[in-house]
């Protein structure tokens, strides 16, 4: 009897709603985890900034496998979150399903687009930012061979790769760009061992600057670059601090700003559904210069990159967006 009571109490505790106010926002992180020092961590920092500035808690969920997505988003929606922020393109189908079930709940989807009246879709023009770091790579390379390590083989990651390649060729039309994809499942964003091995393979082929767009897998790439004393380029968050001296720069994608804006707009009542695309013009993407890489990026490199940035913003320089061509 006592055991039954205990079990019931335990079960009740499990199913009880966590203690957050009705208007709190919620965020769902993707497979790499919120400490991937890259994409998800940027989202996490946006949410933390919201918490710091408003003093309001947020609900969060880190999924461990793809099967959990829909269930997790539905749970967050059911608990009456002010806005459910789903981080990552893989959540597209799940958001679409759940948003139809809860027409009164607001959803913000990052990195993909769902056309529903209660969904805000935020995408980034990563090809523009990648173009700039591609230029940096080409200018820093002595072997005229630069590398790219992608996470999962999907159009979104190919978009990074294409922009990077075009940026490198903008500087040196003869440059060779060697590309690798880590895998074909979301686990490819969380496999640093394989990332390191792919980078080593590229170094053996003469690559001396490698750009990783691979979430936590990139950590292995940056480590391999440090071990081999080659340059690496970070992605999504500013990753220059990871290995000062060998991190040439980082392609910053302001996922943090997107998450922060979604949460604080929902709080202020200014949240709007619809699709938004953030690029160089909106400062949604860019490249990072800080004390960790100041010595690696020369004034001349910076000048040329900034010229290209201005040209892209003004529309004088076109960067191919492979996802737009489908």
């Amino acid at each position, binding site marked *: 009897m006592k055991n039954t009571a205990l079990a019931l109490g335990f079960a009740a505790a499990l199913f009880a709603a966590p203690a957050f106010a009705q208007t709190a926002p919620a965020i769902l992180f993707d497979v790499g*985890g919120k*400490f991937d020092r890259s994409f998800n961590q940027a989202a996490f920092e946006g949410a933390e900034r919201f918490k710091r500035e408003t003093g309001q808690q947020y609900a969060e969920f880190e999924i461990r496998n793809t099967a959990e997505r829909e269930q997790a988003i539905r749970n967050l929606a059911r608990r009456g979150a002010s806005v459910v922020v789903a981080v990552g393109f893989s959540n597209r189908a799940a958001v679409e399903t759940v948003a139809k079930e809860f027409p009164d709940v607001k959803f913000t989807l990052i990195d993909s687009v769902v056309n529903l009246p209660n969904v805000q879709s935020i995408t980034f023009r990563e090809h523009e930012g990648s173009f700039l770091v591609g230029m940096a790579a080409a200018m820093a390379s002595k072997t005229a061979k630069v590398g790219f390590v992608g996470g999962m083989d999907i159009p979104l990651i190919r978009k990074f790769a294409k922009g990077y390649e075009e940026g490198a060729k903008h500087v040196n039309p003869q440059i060779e760009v060697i590309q690798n994809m880590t*895998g074909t499942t979301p686990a490819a964003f969380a496999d*640093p*061992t394989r990332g390191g*091995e792919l980078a080593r*393979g590229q170094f053996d082929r003469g690559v001396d600057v490698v750009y990783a767009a691979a979430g*936590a897998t990139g*950590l292995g790439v940056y480590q391999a670059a440090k071990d081999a004393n080659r340059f690496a380029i970070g992605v999504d968050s500013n990753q220059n601090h*990871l290995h000062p001296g060998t991190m040439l720069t980082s392609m910053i994608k302001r996922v943090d700003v997107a998450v922060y804006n979604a949460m604080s707009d929902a709080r202020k009542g200014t949240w709007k559904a619809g699709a938004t695309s953030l690029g160089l013009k909106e400062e949604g993407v860019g490249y990072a210069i800080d004390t960790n890489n100041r010595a690696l990026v020369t004034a001349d490199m910076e000048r040329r990159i900034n010229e290209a940035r201005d040209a892209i913003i003004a529309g004088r320089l076109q960067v191919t967006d492979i996802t737009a061509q489908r």
Partner: protein
Amino acid sequence: MEDLVLQTVSLLASTVRLAVPLILCALAGLFAERSGVVDIGLEGKMLAGAFAAASVAFWLQSAWAGLAAAMLVSIAFALVHGFACITHRGNQVVAGMALNVLAVGLTAVLAFAWFQEGGKTPALADAARFRPLQLPFAAEIGAVPVIGTIYVRLLSGHNALVYLTAALVPVVAFVVFRTRFGLRLRAVGENPHAVDTAGISVARLRYEAMLASGALCGIAGAYLSTAQSAAFLREMTAGKGFLALAALIFGKWMPIPTLFACLIFAFADALQGRLQGVELPGIGEVPVQALQALPYLLTLLLLAGFVGKANAPRASGIPYSKEK
């Protein structure tokens, strides 16, 4: 010509780096299974070892201390397995699987609690890692074409654990096939009643095998987190323990064939990385998905076509009791 040699050598060097954890785990499995314990827990022991190595190496700033910790923790896991299925005659597969699940959960929780980096351990400095070693005369021989490339890039320039693994394969072969302990080990996996009748403790022999298995898995774990990478990450073993088990079956529970099975798996893995985006003559560019299926396709083909009947140690998987 020189470029072709360089590419081939670099592919083979990558194969060696990828094969090391497989070889160590397969040898661990060889001890356990030869003694009659099905060791599906290789994955969990390796993961626990990887976590112990990264944590201790970080605290003490010593790769060797990390290695020792990895071996101890992995041995502790092996003894739990032994306690469940040797002493208490539990189901070996279930106990092994339980260890795997335990290792996944425990390492993530402890890493989170101790380091607050979301299930990672802090990145290790060079002093706390196994770094590549240069074999003697690398600079002199390196100037010689072909041979120099092979010496410098394939034979030299690996870390201490790679050379240790290379040395362990013949040692294990010798122990299992040329020593009294090895004879008894094989006998206890085939016919434990005969061994018992001869007055030798079945349980003791199996526990000794588990000790060896734990120690080897620990080295594999340390290799993953302190040599190949510079930190522990959640589930970083990524199924290598199971692949090692497949290699062991493929190698018919013999050390040298198992070594080659591991090398073939690692080669396929290394190859798929190199072939991505490369135009193959007559075929064109092969899709990434097809290339990444290569190691598994190869496994299926080899297991189906070339291995023939694999005879497991006869008593493998059966808990020993005197009555039956």
